[in-house]
């Protein structure tokens, strides 16, 4: 099962590791406190050096260090994406397993629900729910997690149906395994591949959703930084302070690109049709 | 069968990446003759057939050898010319007839396509062909789609479309493997009759020694990408000279053996192309193997009476006069 990793993928993996380390080590890496304001240092261009510090990426309209805000913002983005992906992965997979195992009415009900959810544009659903519930980190995670599970359910359902018909599942029944053990030990490990592929593609999407919601003011709330909220605040100064939108935007672009390329690579490895036999 | 051979394959070698799949395979088939290539799954039967038709998948390269069709080398002619060869001079049928037929086109049109004519113009000829391959009620069947027909009938349709242009050579890759024995018997009878009536040279690929015994005039036994033994069917079955052929024949349960008796076994398993060593590829499983077998490739050498074997220690012909 060990993969040969091409140089391209190696670079992508390194970049992803870089993002994760930057987010995890924000305290250590940040040159300044991302929340400390200074009216004297408003909208300084990148590379501006004051008596005490150098602002490599400049400062924002409240004089806060942009580099520090982006590092902390990476943490917000990755944390929201990781947690919401985990929530929807668990919920979606559980429902898909149940539908695929019990079939019949259980499956009809669950899959109808999935179809309904999938027919509503996802970002609209998220915006509406946040608008009703109000913003906040936990709420953001829950909203994203609980609106994004249907794709996992679809994939888990189809994969469960397929695996459940295989002789080794019959053999497990013959061995005397109960439903829990069959689902947990025999089916789940064998449908994990396609689910991980969905999870990575969703991870990229969740980063964008978080940025979008924060940009609209519905996500991470000021003064805490997130790439979306930094860009949102910087929007007013696009002509005067380009760095406020360009740097977080570029980070967002590179991160999502890396995640998606990684996801494609993972899909090619997991999908047996693209594996050479 | 005194005529010049319709198809000659010389020293054909195929490789995927660095691994050789098929190594120096050669045989010939005369008009009206059924020549069987028999071997276990993965030994290179299908890729050999695809190489003859020049239909190899991209990953597989031909690294050597010639293919002579009616004396003309077709292994290097341009793809355009090859398209005229396929279907006109040489046709192929497959294991899964239903998968090989176009699901959206009526069987009549598919057969007519082999003549490169619209069905309207050649309807009479197609009907005659359908009758010839034993399709009952051809007037109705001609306008049906493949999914309306059973597997056995689809194979008859495949045979009809392969033979309607009277090609010199028919390559049949496991044509009856997906069929039941009663249907298999029908299709084998049909193939034999058509080969003789139309003087078609048939290359029959199979893993089933029973099928070989039933219809092949001559046979080549393949093992791990090489020919182990070749010659007239009756003689090979009567006195196999290569240890692999001998063991294989002894390991098959027969209607005449003693029930529950111990069958002869070939220990181990067929090697993968990546495991091919320098010597005889059967050496790891061969009871007669010695040091030379592991180091040197046994050449395919003639034993007389049209028989060939690739073994240093070929069994002496028993039951013959000294």
């Amino acid at each position, binding site marked *: 099962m060990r993969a040969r990793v091409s140089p391209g993928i190696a670079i992508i993996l390194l970049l992803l590791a870089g993002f994760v380390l930057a987010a995890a080590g924000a305290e250590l890496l940040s040159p300044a406190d991302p929340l400390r304001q200074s009216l004297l240092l408003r909208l300084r261009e990148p590379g501006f050096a004051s008596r005490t510090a150098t602002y490599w990426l400049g400062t924002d309209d409240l004089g806060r260090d942009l580099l520090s805000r982006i590092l902390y913002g990476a943490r917000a983005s990755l944390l929201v994406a990781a947690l919401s992906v985990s929530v929807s992965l668990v919920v979606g997979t559980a429902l898909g397993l149940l539908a695929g195992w019990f079939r019949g009415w259980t499956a009809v009900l669950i899959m109808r629900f999935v179809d309904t959810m999938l027919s509503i544009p996802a970002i609209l659903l998220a915006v509406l729910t946040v608008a009703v519930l109000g913003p906040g980190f936990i709420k953001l995670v829950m909203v994203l997690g609980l609106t994004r599970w249907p794709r996992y359910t679809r994939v888990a359902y189809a994969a469960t149906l397929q695996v459940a018909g295989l002789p080794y599942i019959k053999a497990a029944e013959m061995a005397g395994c109960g439903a829990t053990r069959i689902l947990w030990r025999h089916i789940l490990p064998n449908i994990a591949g396609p689910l991980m592929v969905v999870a990575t593609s969703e991870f990229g999407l969740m980063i964008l959703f978080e940025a979008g919601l924060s940009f609209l003011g519905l996500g991470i709330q000021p003064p805490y930084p997130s790439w979306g909220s930094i860009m949102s605040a910087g929007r007013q100064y696009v002509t005067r302070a380009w760095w406020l939108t360009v740097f977080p935007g570029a980070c967002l672009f590179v991160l999502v690109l890396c995640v998606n390329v990684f996801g494609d690579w993972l899909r090619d490895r997991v999908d047996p049709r693209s594996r050479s036999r | 069968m005194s005529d010049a051979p319709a198809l000659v394959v010389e020293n054909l070698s195929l490789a995927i990446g660095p691994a050789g799949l098929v190594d120096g395979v050669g045989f010939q088939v005369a008009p009206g003759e059924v020549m069987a290539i028999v071997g276990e799954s993965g030994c290179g039967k299908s890729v050999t057939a695809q190489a003859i038709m020049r239909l190899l998948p991209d990953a597989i390269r031909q690294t050597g050898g010639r293919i002579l069709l009616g004396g003309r080398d077709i292994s290097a002619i341009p793809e355009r010319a090859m398209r005229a060869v396929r279907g006109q001079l040489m046709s192929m049928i497959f294991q899964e007839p239903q998968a090989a037929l176009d699901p959206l086109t009526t069987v009549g049109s598919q057969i007519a396509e082999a003549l490169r004519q619209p069905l309207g113009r050649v309807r009479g000829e197609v009907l005659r062909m359908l009758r010839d391959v034993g399709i009952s009620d051809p007037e109705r069947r001609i306008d049906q789609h493949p999914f309306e027909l059973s597997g056995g009938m689809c194979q008859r349709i495949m045979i009809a479309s392969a033979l309607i242009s009277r090609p010199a050579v028919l390559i049949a890759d496991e044509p009856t493997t997906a069929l039941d024995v009663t249907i298999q018997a029908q299709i084998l009878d049909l193939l034999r009759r058509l080969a003789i009536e139309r003087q078609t040279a048939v290359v029959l690929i199979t893993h089933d020694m*029973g099928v070989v015994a*039933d219809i092949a005039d001559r046979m080549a036994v393949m093992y791990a990408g090489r020919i182990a033994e070749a010659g007239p069917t009756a003689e090979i079955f009567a006195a196999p000279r290569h240890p692999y052929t001998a063991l294989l024949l002894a390991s098959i349960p027969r209607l005449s053996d003693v029930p529950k008796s111990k069958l002869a076994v070939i220990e181990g398993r067929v090697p993968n192309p990546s495991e091919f060593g320098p010597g005889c590829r059967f050496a790891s499983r061969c009871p007669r193997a010695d040091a030379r077998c592991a180091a040197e490739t046994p050449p395919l050498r003639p034993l007389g009476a049209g028989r060939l074997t690739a073994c240093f220690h070929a069994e002496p012909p028993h039951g013959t006069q000294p």
Partner: protein
Amino acid sequence: MNTLEITGLKVHFPGRGGAPVRAVDGVSLSIAAGETLGLVGESGCGKSTVSNATVGLLSPTEGSVKVLGTELAGASRETLRAIRAKAQMVFQDPVTSLNPRMTIGEAVGEPLLVRGLARGAALRDQVGALLEEVGLRADHAGRYPHQFSGGQRQRIVIARALALRPALLVCDEPVSALDVSVRAQILNLLVELQARHGMSTLFVSHDLAVVRHVCDRVAVMYLGRIVELAPRDALYSAPRHPYTKALLAAVPEPDPVTQRAKPRVPLEGEIPSPANPPPGCRFHTRCPIAVDRCRSEEPAWRAVGAASVACHLA
């Protein structure tokens, strides 16, 4: 008491367009202790359906299936679980018979573990002994299925089926997916295990020569029914039913001399759909000796010599 006793078994599946698929439509058979019964017939005639019903993986639409006297039809989940300790199964395709994410040791030991029969070191010892019994090495237990060839995987599957020391082993085409040179290894193993443990076996195959090699009695199935059931030697030397005769004539024997001398009994046409079986004798659409009566009247099951046959003219 017979190890297996099937009476009037029917298994119907919901079909497209109303008419149910009568996959098994009135099958009765029994297997005595230590006996091997072969079940042969063409694709789709219902062999796998019978074997699945025998171990309770399918529930009968009608009729009774008794393993060691315990009824499976309508049995509770606990009863089924208990019966499966006595009736185990070997499947056709060794690739899909093993969970690719489980080591073969876990697979072979699973029946013992989940039934609380062994754990820890005792489980490891038993798994090792089972692997050795089927000709593998005990220290292979930590490997995954993809590290084994088809024949070896079938050995693993057999070891798993033996773990509970079943009284009945159901083998559904156990050698059909294997290479010719490996088939003999597995057949020898099955014959040997059967002699050693004295299990009863239901051996399903479409290969008449293989069935003859391992079975004591043979049942021939056609379109959801058994048409002939006879001791092996009687069936092969003096087949009674026209379908049995045709099947035997169609088996290509790996011997050009006998094969080409064999009289051809070509069977016209193909097996009809089980959703819409012909009236009267189900075989009449293909039977070379059918008479008028066959088209309307179902042949009764009767004894002819050592055989039981369902044919008006046998």
